[in-house]
């Protein structure tokens, strides 16, 4: 019982911190007219705050792990938006599917390849 109520005490402030950093991101985006979404700015700010010990890891860790593990679930409502575009997609299905899937494969390969080439070079030249 005691441990459960302790967990609960920690959960709300953790959610609060994540929301505060999202909000900070939105405020910065608004003030500087940035094209980068507020949540990304919030993520960068939270990373920096953790790095400079302004926020401690345990103040956000459990809820963050929970959200990341379940992120896929939050995509269902926007994904249902498929139904609005079924006709448009059906009329252009080849262009849309071919372009999207091929391009995704290219991003995977190019990113992975460049990231790995760098990797082998560094391990060879570790002491240079």
């Amino acid at each position, binding site marked *: 019982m005691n441990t459960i109520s302790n967990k609960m005490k920690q959960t709300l402030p953790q*959610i609060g911190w*994540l929301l505060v950093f*999202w909000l900070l991101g939105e405020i910065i985006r608004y003030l500087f007219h940035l*094209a*980068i*979404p*507020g*949540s*990304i700015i*919030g*993520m*960068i700010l*939270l*990373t920096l705050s*953790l*790095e400079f010990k302004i926020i401690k*890891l345990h103040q956000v860790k459990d809820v*963050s792990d929970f*959200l*990341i*593990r*379940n*992120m*896929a*679930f*939050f*995509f*269902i*409502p*926007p*994904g*249902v*938006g498929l139904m609005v*575009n079924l006709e*448009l*997609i059906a009329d*252009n299905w080849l*262009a*849309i599917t*071919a*372009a*999207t*899937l*091929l*391009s*995704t494969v*290219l*991003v*995977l*390969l*190019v*990113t*992975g*390849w*460049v*990231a*790995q080439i*760098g*990797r082998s070079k*560094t391990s060879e030249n570790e002491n240079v």
Partner: protein
Amino acid sequence: MTDLIHSEVFLVSFTFVSYILAQKLYQKVNLIFLNPVLIAILAVILFLRFTGIEYHDYADKSKVISFWLNPSVVALAVPLYLQMKRIKKDWVRILLATLSGSVIGIVSVVIIAQILGASHEIFYSLAPKSVTTPIALSISETIGGLPALTTAVVVVVGVFGAVLGESILKLARIKHPNAVGLAMGMASHALGTAKIATKGDEYGSYSAMGLAINGILTSLLIPKLLLVLEGWF
């Protein structure tokens, strides 16, 4: 009865139950194309069609779910922070890999769609396809795409990457956990990250980084790249 079916609690519960059942099915059958998100999306679409509920009505009432997309993006700070030492040592490689991945993602989708006869409206909607929904939506709106089409394409890209990304990388002999993580986050945003993060922090942190960096790069690069690409066609 109609009131009940249209209610927030009914639609949110339906979404919840669809996803949990889809997860159970996936664990039992273990066929990769039975991705739980995809199955749940299809189940909800069928239900809405069957009951005649408009998508806008559903989207409005399920905001309590989609709202958490943004806090989850903020939460990716945790795996990033945990790998900070490695990232600091690695930043040149990360920058080169993400920059080339981001450019190839935008340019290739626009060129292929153009060649296959898609309209401007469509390839504007496809251009931000690799980045996570809240980011892709705001980009699509800014450049004159169809936000609803962008959302749909982003989810398809995410599911595709989550389902086949690892196998594609393995075929290409890309195996280093950091490279695999980075590629998954770059190509299939939060859905790819959610999948690959289960393999450990050295995957998850780089995937989170790929997702974040691609979000930033794509929003900065798209306006310029589209100008160049339009000059070609």
